[in-house]
């Protein structure tokens, strides 16, 4: 067993899991509190990356890019809530799917019009391009930064949800929406804040990954489906559930990408195992979701008090 490889892969899994968490936490809150299915949540991920990249190109500073990007994506999220989502909270899930798919098309094309088709590279400061060495382990600095940021946001969100009045309302809303309405809270403002906050977290995830993969059109459309799997597996409306489920899925994906071909190689010719493994590892998360839905439809960690 190559332990340094295993540790590296576990950290890679953690990194992927945390990115998924940033996307899924907003998604699960919007889903749980407003009962709104937002397929276009992945567009926030993309737009965040483009905003950040544009500011970096102007100012040359990654940090300033992130700050401005966050403000920008918060505003975009609030605008989507204000003009579109708000009018649909009471309608059918089918309508949500339709409208937010339309939004995906709109956002993708707008990005194409504004920034062109070629994608956008986001250069990093030199110190982030290096590696951290711990004994035999050589770890990319930037990936460690992603892990740090992901854990930091998770901690902040925990404090926000558990310790603040807004958090209390969010928790109450996720488990019982009518109760919050009955309390005479300005529900519209709560929804607006939650939606925009969710958008900002998704945008942040996009900003973090873009220096590695570049910002590109449609970058959020594939990962959003995985984020939905996270939401379902964790339990709709549960931030804690989203956290654990995201880590489980991140680990599962990375570890199966690294070891599944070896495992399959025990049962079938190596050449076939090598080509079948990536597809099978992609299949695993859906198998997990189907199993959860069939045997524990409320998810692994449903919000406390949910029906």
């Amino acid at each position, binding site marked *: 067993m190559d332990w340094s490889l295993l540790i590296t892969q576990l950290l890679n899994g953690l990194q992927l899991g945390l990115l998924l968490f940033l996307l899924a936490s907003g998604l699960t809150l919007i889903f749980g509190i407003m009962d709104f299915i937002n397929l276009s949540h992945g567009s926030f991920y993309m737009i965040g990356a483009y905003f950040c990249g544009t500011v970096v190109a102007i100012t040359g500073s990654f940090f300033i890019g992130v700050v401005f990007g966050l403000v920008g994506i918060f505003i975009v999220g609030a605008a989507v809530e204000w003009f579109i989502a708000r009018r*649909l909270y009471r309608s059918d899930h089918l309508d949500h799917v339709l409208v937010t798919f*339309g939004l995906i098309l709109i956002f993708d094309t707008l990005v*194409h019009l504004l920034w062109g088709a070629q994608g956008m590279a986001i250069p990093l400061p030199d110190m982030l391009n290096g590696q951290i060495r711990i004994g035999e382990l050589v770890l990319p600095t930037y990936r460690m930064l992603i892990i740090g940021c992901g854990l930091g946001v998770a901690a902040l969100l925990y404090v926000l949800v558990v310790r603040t009045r807004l958090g209390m309302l969010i928790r109450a809303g996720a488990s019982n929406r009518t109760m919050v309405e009955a309390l005479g809270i300005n529900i519209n403002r709560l929804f607006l804040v939650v939606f925009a906050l969710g958008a900002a977290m998704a945008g942040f995830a996009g900003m973090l990954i873009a220096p590695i993969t570049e910002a590109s059109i449609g970058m959020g459309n594939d990962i959003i489906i995985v984020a939905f799997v996270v939401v379902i597996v964790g339990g709709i409306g549960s931030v804690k559930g989203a956290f654990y489920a995201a880590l489980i899925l991140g680990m599962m994906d990375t570890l199966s990408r690294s070891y599944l071909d070896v495992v399959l190689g025990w049962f079938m010719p190596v050449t076939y195992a090598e*080509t079948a493994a990536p597809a099978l590892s992609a299949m695993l998360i859906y*198998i997990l*979701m189907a199993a959860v839905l069939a045997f524990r439809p409320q998810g692994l960690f449903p919000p406390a008090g949910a029906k």
Partner: protein
Amino acid sequence: MKAWLPQTWSGRIYALLLLSLALAPFVLDWMKQPFYLDLLTRALIFAIAVISLNLILGYGGMVSLGHAAYIGIGAYCVGIPSYYDYYNGWLHLALALGVGGGFALITGAISLRTKGVYFIMITMAFSQMAFFLFVSMEEYGADDGLVIYSRSEFPQWISLDSAFGLYYWIFAVLLLALFFIHRLVHAHFGRVIVGSKFNEERMMALGFNTYRYRLACYVLSAMLCSVAGMLLGNFAGFISPDMMSWARSGELIFMVIIGGVGTLFGPLIGTMVFVLLEEILSAITVYWHLIFGIMLVALVLYGKGGIHGWLSLLDRGGGGRG
């Protein structure tokens, strides 16, 4: 007024639509537009798939985000035998019905234990599994897809080789599907399905094992969709796992909604509009997705009931039942 003539404006428009579809090949041939015949053929095939989706989604209230899987299954039931030089169409049809129905029986039995948004997600999960299964099949082209070099053969019965022949056989299947759905929803079985959509608890209290009826409905719908897949494989001559991705399933849902959920002709007209709009808009600009996206948003915010809903507005003035 003769009894068999449609009595309502929407009815007249649908009759006109069917009539134009019946005459279209001749008109297009005269206009020397073989490409538009291809486009119509493709639209008819998708219409069959959309009609099948409407059976569970529109009449039964089961929103599946995985129906494209059956298009793929049906298509591969042509592609894989052809890869081994088995071109017998009856074999392809039997496989499509058997494999599509079997997959639906197994996944439906599990999926139908869930409701609402969970059903949407679990059907999506199963279709993604099917998608990645075909992606992993190296022998049959995996991600790259599979070229089908020759169409299904139905010796002494049917020839699919000419563009005209293929079109009319597909049109015949479409008419059959419409007639079948019409009978089905008005028969005992259909009433149970429709009743379960609106009030499943009540239906159980009336003595219906709704799970069984819904499962049967799901399987029937999947089999019809697999036939559409088989036709698509024949028509396109090229199949790939991409045709079963969740985004394709989403498109099928849109076609149902554009036309009108739970109506007989809604899916047909919805598909026609979707496919033609896609073609016309994409010919105008590469940024056509923007226009299309705005249309989708507007449709939900302002256009309740889809095209069928708008056409029904015409009927209010004219009297008679819609």
